[in-house]
């Protein structure tokens, strides 16, 4: 990640005439290129005002705002806004224009020729997962809420702005759609690496989306500005802690993925084996349980010695069903899978559903009690660690 400063707020104030207290008071904040900065705080704390001063939808009363080194308070507001992506909760697609026209508005204002605008609109629709041939000529009202917001994001990206401002962009969608839009947007951001200022009042969304989170209090005062991991592990004061709410530990589980914790191996028993052989194999191993797998190494059931004794004739019906997770799943999902399993373990499978290892509650505990170090923004992102012991090594044939 590059660490060039992209947005620099320097002692920005916003007063309104007739109001004694400023809405935003002495706000200073430095935002690196490629970061998603989430401004989160109670309603009326000035987070939206702060964001809107960056593209000067609201004029700052004093202070400087630099974008990529240029003081934007000196630029023409409309020119500035054409170079900054802007996404709002209500989407704001123009209902009398087709999807493609909506997406092409900013390029048109920038004077691109029609062919280039058309090509760009198609490219962006494709990027946000809407097939251009189907959607480009539709009107906004012919789309679902989630699709509309995708078009909203495409419109904001149209002129490839380095900076995007997003004001509760997924706030008006239902929880399932919101989750999907968030995931899609994070995937998009991995390619685009825009510098994003994201406003929300939903702390869970902040944790999910933010590279860093600024928890704001009254008058947009920064109470804490840190990575989600650090915020959860070490809230700066009781107000922040209160805002994080209950379940900080559980929320931490959302930030980690299964491939970030140590996997354990268990004995595997091929289903086509006679029960006696399986029993012998189970006796030889130290663990109390083994996993039955099919010919492709797909996990089927947990078995222990008692199970085998109870169903000596049918190995495929002995024991308990397994719960599986993929390496990209969050630890929260893994925990859920563990709790559903008799042995407190979830089976990790690869994308083909084949056995890759198991994760246990013990492994989870270890991660939670290891606090990430400060200034380590990538700590929540799984690194490309080598896969844990390939399952093939453990197949009975090789024993």
């Amino acid at each position, binding site marked *: 990640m590059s660490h060039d400063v992209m947005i620099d707020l320097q002692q920005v104030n916003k007063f309104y005439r007739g109001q004694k207290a400023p809405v935003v008071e002495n706000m200073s904040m430095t935002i690196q290129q490629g970061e998603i900065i989430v401004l989160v705080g109670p309603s009326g704390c000035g987070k939206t005002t702060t964001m809107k001063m960056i*593209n000067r*939808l609201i004029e700052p009363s004093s202070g400087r705002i630099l974008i990529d080194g240029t003081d934007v308070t000196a630029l023409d507001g*409309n*020119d*500035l*806004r*054409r*170079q900054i992506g*802007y996404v*709002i909760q*209500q*989407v*704001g*697609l*123009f*209902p*009398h*224009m*087709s999807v493609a026209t909506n997406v092409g*508005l*900013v390029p048109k*204002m920038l004077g691109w020729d029609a062919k280039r605008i058309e090509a760009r609109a198609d490219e962006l629709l494709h990027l946000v997962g809407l*097939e251009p041939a*189907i*959607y480009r000529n539709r*009107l906004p*009202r*012919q*789309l*679902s*809420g*989630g*699709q509309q917001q995708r078009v909203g994001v495409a*419109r*904001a990206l149209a002129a490839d702005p380095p900076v995007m401002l997003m004001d509760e962009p997924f706030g008006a969608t239902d929880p399932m*759609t919101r989750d999907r839009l968030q995931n899609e947007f994070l995937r998009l951001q991995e390619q685009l690496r825009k510098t994003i200022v994201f406003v929300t009042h939903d702390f869970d969304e902040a944790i999910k989306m933010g590279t860093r989170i600024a928890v704001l209090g009254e008058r947009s005062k920064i109470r804490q500005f840190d990575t989600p991991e650090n915020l959860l592990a070490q809230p700066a004061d009781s107000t922040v802690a209160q805002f994080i709410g209950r379940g900080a530990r559980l929320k931490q589980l959302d930030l980690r993925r299964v491939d970030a914790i140590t996997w354990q191996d268990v004995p595997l028993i091929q289903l086509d084996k006679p029960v006696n052989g399986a029993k012998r194999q189970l006796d030889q191993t130290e663990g109390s349980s083994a996993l039955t797998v099919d010919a492709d190494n797909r996990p089927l059931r947990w078995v222990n010695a008692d199970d085998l004794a109870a169903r000596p004739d049918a190995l495929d019906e002995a024991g308990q069903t397994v719960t599986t997770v993929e390496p990209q799943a969050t630890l929260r999902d893994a925990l859920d899978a563990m709790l559903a399993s008799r042995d407190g373990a979830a089976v990790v499978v690869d994308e083909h559903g084949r056995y890759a290892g198991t994760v246990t509650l013990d492994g989870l505990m270890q991660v939670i009690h290891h606090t990430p170090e400060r200034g380590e923004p990538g700590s929540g992102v799984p690194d490309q660690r080598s896969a844990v012991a390939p399952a093939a090594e453990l197949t009975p044939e090789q024993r």
Partner: protein
Amino acid sequence: MTFLEFLQSRRELLLAQTLEHATIVLMSVALATVIGVLIALWTYRHPRARAVATGMAAAMLTIPSFALLGLLITPLGLGYTPTLVALTMYALLPILRNTIVGLTEIDPALTEAARGIGMGRVRSLATVELPLAWPVILTGIRVSTQMTMGIAAIGAYVQGPGLGHQIFDGLANLGGVNSLNQALVGTVGVIVLALTVDVALALLGKLTQAGQRPKLFRTRPTLRPTLTPATAAPSPSLGGRE
């Protein structure tokens, strides 16, 4: 002479007067549209200016047409001009009011989005706000047209153009030969003309409603319609909805 024979015998004169009638109505409505939309654009963001503008237009509408036309003789003389001015004054209120309604009822999220992506005021008005308000403005234009069709007949009182002459002559000679036919032909002519122009304007509405599929036989317009016509045709989905 029967009514039809009367029509036949005076065909050319009646046709000419009908055309005159339509022309002066359409001219005054066009003038009122320009003036009304401009005043609306100027006032719609300021509640007090808005109230003053609509209040004045409403007051003009209450002046009896006979009186207004008569009073206009002094500064403007007889004939075309006082008729045109009077009709424009009457046509102003529905257009002005509907334009204000149309513009103020636009979802604030849309104007914010327009500003947020870098549209200036003029561009936002031209490409977003006025096109969205247009169906409401057009409804005002239709109401004004209907209204001035009738009032235009009284223009004959100041020697204005149109079918009013038939009505006035007929009523003045009531009991005389063809007098009833004259009054009738004037009245029916105005009605037929009003309906014809209204249908034409309705068609214009279908053709110019941005982003709407043409759908004929909509419900009758009212003075304060909702912004998006409730009859907007739901379009068939091609699948892929969430």
